[in-house]
């Protein structure tokens, strides 16, 4: 086949594909239920009742936000605060998800204005410190944890949102913040500030102060760790057997409990035929694990500690996954410090064993 002929075949094929795809899109509008199930339900629950993610069907929430807030939240996510940004969805898909969320509750839509509210940010700052910072943090960084989850005890039915998060500020109109301050959110610790005795002017001042968070650089709570390498690895001067013993000693040196030592290929070859060149040592500090799971119940993915000893190409390597990857994978800045700590501990074990 010559090049021009191939090209014309390609053009014909692409035209057919494009036409078929366009027709499919036109005749089959996005299935909001399916999109929600595939992308949202794991965190927010099949019925939007919440889980790792916040409950969406709370009537006091749905009646205080408009569809644009939901759309922008899906698009922007909340950097460093679990909720990822779903950039890949087209407008029709986002609308379908929003429509599905609305269908889960009979709560009315809020009708909100996009006009900026004016007020005194300095006065708002004083009021914020007095009335808001206990839950939302001194600088609007939000409550700790991942929100509601039924997998372990929680102190609050819902996580106080990070008001200084760029995703929140890009999604919330002033009028939505004001509406929430005026009405409160029944079913959450967020009370009506009118009932607390604040005037409308006071509330406007708080809104203007919250909006002023946009003037600052993204906060630490919206920043995730970056990693250059997915693995912590060192070369051991010892044999595999000796290195395994040294890893075990190093593990006890950092007060971890040794769980198990097993060949890398155990369970994949016949019993007794396992290679002696690859060994995995599992260990755990259950106090640390419990602390990490309370920050984010998903972190068990990289915990307990798994150290792999591998003899290959004349070398013995000792390695583990790099826990710094966790904060980005889970979009959870609260894991940053724990990930740094884990990385230090894993590195210490590996370096002690290969000294």
């Amino acid at each position: 086949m010559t090049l021009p002929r191939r090209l014309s075949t390609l053009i014909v094929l692409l035209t057919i594909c494009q036409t078929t795809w366009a027709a499919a899109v036109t005749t089959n509008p996005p299935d909001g239920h399916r999109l929600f199930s595939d992308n949202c339900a794991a965190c927010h629950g099949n019925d939007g009742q919440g889980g790792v993610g916040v409950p969406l069907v709370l009537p006091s929430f749905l009646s205080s936000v408009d569809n644009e807030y939901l759309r922008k939240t899906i698009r922007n996510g909340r950097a460093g605060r679990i909720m990822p940004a779903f950039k890949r969805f087209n407008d029709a898909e986002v609308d379908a998800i929003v429509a599905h969320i609305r269908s889960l509750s009979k709560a009315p839509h809020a009708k909100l204005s996009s006009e900026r509210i004016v007020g005194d940010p300095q006065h708002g700052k004083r009021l914020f410190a007095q009335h808001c910072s206990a839950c939302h943090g001194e600088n609007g960084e939000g409550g700790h944890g991942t929100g509601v989850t039924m997998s372990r005890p929680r102190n609050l039915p819902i996580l106080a949102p990070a008001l200084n998060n760029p995703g929140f500020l890009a999604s919330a109109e002033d009028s939505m913040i004001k509406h929430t301050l005026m009405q409160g959110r029944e079913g959450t610790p967020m009370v009506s500030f009118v009932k607390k005795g604040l005037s409308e002017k006071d509330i406007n001042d708080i809104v203007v102060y919250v909006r002023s968070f946009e003037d600052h650089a993204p906060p630490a709570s919206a920043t995730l760790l970056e990693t250059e390498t997915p693995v912590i690895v060192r070369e051991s001067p010892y044999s595999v057997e000796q290195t395994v013993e040294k890893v075990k000693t190093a593990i006890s040196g950092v007060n971890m409990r040794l769980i198990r030592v097993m060949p890398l290929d155990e369970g994949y070859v016949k019993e007794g035929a396992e290679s002696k060149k690859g060994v995995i040592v599992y260990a755990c500090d259950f106090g640390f694990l419990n602390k990490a799971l309370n920050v984010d119940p998903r972190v068990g993915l990289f915990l307990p500690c798994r150290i792999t000893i591998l003899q290959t190409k004349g070398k013995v390597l000792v390695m583990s996954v790099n826990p710094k990857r966790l904060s980005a994978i889970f979009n959870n800045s609260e894991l940053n410090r724990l990930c740094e700590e884990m990385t230090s501990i894993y590195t210490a074990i590996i370096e002690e064993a290969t000294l």
Partner: protein
Amino acid sequence: MKKLVSYIPVYLLAALLSTPGFADELLMVRVDHPFPEAMNLLQESIRAHGYTVSRVQRVDVGLTSSGYTTAEYRLVFFGKPAEIKSLPEKHPELAAYLPLNIVIFAEGDDTIILTANPLSLEAFFKDPSLHGQFGRWEKDIRAILNQASANK
């Protein structure tokens, strides 16, 4: 060279018709079943997709024996014998990620199943020969999770 150029349209077509190149960092599903049933569904699904479950780590047992309260929480390790044998030889640092693992934990009457998307490892392991591998794992794991979370 001329022969190579003549195949450019075919490569282009293949690229255009392939799956979109985005990678979610996390693959996560909610299973509408209590933990024991969900665990069975997950293991059945892993096996149905040609993988061997080599071990289940009972994280919850370790936690409760240390005095902490938790719902059921396990780690399921799985892989294909040929990959467990060959990949560490060719790509030693990948051994830290083998066998592959999936987290499964109870959340009320539901169960959450999740794992890191293997495709996200492409950013770190630059060897092009691995990229097909990561893509296959991603496709298989998506299928495993979909099957496990499908209502039965």
